[in-house]
């Protein structure tokens, strides 16, 4: 048989295969002594799980906990305020990706900035910055870089191109974060709270695209040191069901290991060239403040000192606001990102806070748990 695009698309969404896995999981789960809470770290998985109504296909002793893996949802107001201030500078074009433009900061979102005359652009690929910079030689193009391990190599590739092409008007505001640090933080912080919440994380569904870049090796510590199985899963519903089945089997057989369901794209070592590019331009930052989760040591990246001339955070350090900003007092995004609450538990979910007028960031991105519940919640 030859591989066709059709197989790669349809077969991994096939309803019969999903049902078959639901049946296997049900039979296996009946043998479990305790229930299992599986955290899907990645927002893409949250989206798939909600879109295909997977929770209702699972027996009651298998539950999902939605994790913090949406780059837009974890962006704290402080960083959005940076973007806002930068966009308001004369002769600046602020460029960013995805839903970032809609996330409210303390003065409003980047959309608000745009309505006040700022030149804010949303691009599909960071490489578009090169074109924007060439077309606007008198302007400073600042790329507000966001994302996990998945998107960091693309920012590095942009900087690499900027240096090689000797472009002088592209700068970076770096907000890249890393997955293992936040997973560790979630286990550590929840172990303390476990009694009060009674929904501890028993296993992880490992992110898809993060792992394509980083390789499955970055999760080795979780089964080994934290006694939590990790199964790296693809994005399609069949992938997720298969990965859950693999997790359940580990529990039945008394194993605790790192496994990969998404073998068609994930290797142990990952994309080494992409990793080298990241290591050439980035260092670990001491701290990154995650929205709702607070400061997590070594969980963010920054440009290496030798590339300081491209670092907008350094160049504009005198005008960028400092100091902590509280989240909206009714928003429980923090607990949602920790997997301690579900969106409908928020008192303003679907009323004051909805995708068209988001209060918290989890409602902004389609990968955010609140937005996914809002859109697909009737399936649960």
């Amino acid at each position, binding site marked *: 048989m030859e591989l066709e695009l059709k197989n790669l698309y349809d077969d991994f969404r096939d309803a019969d295969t999903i049902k*078959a896995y639901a049946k296997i999981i049900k039979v296996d789960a009946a043998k479990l002594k305790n229930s299992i809470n599986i955290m899907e770290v*990645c927002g893409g998985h949250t989206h798939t799980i909600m879109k295909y109504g997977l929770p209702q296909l699972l027996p009651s002793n298998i539950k999902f906990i939605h994790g913090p893996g949406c780059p837009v949802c974890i962006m704290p107001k402080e960083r959005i305020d940076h973007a806002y201030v930068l966009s308001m500078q004369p002769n600046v074009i602020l460029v960013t990706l995805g839903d970032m433009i809609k996330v409210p900061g303390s003065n409003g979102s980047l959309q608000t900035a745009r309505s006040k005359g700022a030149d804010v652009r949303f691009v*599909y*690929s*960071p490489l578009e910055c090169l074109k924007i910079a060439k077309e606007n030689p008198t302007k400073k193009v600042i790329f507000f870089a966001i994302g996990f391990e998945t998107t960091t*190599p*693309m920012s590095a*590739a942009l900087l690499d191109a900027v240096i090689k092409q000797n472009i002088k008007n592209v700068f970076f505001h770096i907000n890249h974060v890393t997955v293992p640090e936040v997973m560790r933080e979630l286990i550590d912080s929840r172990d303390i709270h476990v009694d009060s919440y009674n929904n501890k994380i028993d296993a992880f569904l490992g992110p*898809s695209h993060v792992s394509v870049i980083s390789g499955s090796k970055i999760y080795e510590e979780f089964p080994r040191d934290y006694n939590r199985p990790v199964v790296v899963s693809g994005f399609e519903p069949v992938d997720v069901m298969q990965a859950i089945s693999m997790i359940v089997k580990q529990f039945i057989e008394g194993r605790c290991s790192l496994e990969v369901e998404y073998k*068609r794209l994930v290797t142990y070592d990952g994309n080494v060239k992409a990793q080298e590019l990241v290591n050439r331009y980035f260092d670990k930052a001491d701290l990154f403040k995650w929205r709702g989760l607070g400061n997590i040591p070594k969980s963010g990246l920054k440009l290496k000192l030798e590339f300081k001339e491209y670092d907008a955070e350094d160049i504009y350090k005198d005008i960028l606001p400092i100091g902590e900003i509280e989240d909206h007092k009714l928003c429980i995004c923090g607990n949602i990102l920790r997997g301690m609450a579900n969106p409908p538990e928020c008192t303003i979910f679907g009323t004051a806070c909805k995708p068209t007028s988001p209060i918290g960031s989890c409602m902004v991105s389609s990968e955010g748990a609140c937005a996914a519940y809002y859109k697909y919640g009737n399936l649960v």
Partner: protein
Amino acid sequence: MCLSIPSKVVKIDKENEIATVDTMGVQREASLSLMSEEDIHVGDYVLLHIGFVMNKIDEKEALESLELYREIIDAMNEEDRQLAILEADECSNQGD
């Protein structure tokens, strides 16, 4: 921002490190700067993300997964058939 569909490489521009790919009938360009030159060939299936080829899809592994799914569905169908026969048998017994 992560969801993406596999694409097929239809053209490679080595000099500029750019591939032309076909995603469900739509052609677009993607950067190859995260890939080693010898890794990607015309006809390969790749995964794209924000304008870059992230990795090549391992056809052998993909086919093995598809094969596995076919097997579990067949096994399920077989089980269903046996169940149906069993039920039918019981029915006829009751009828006797």
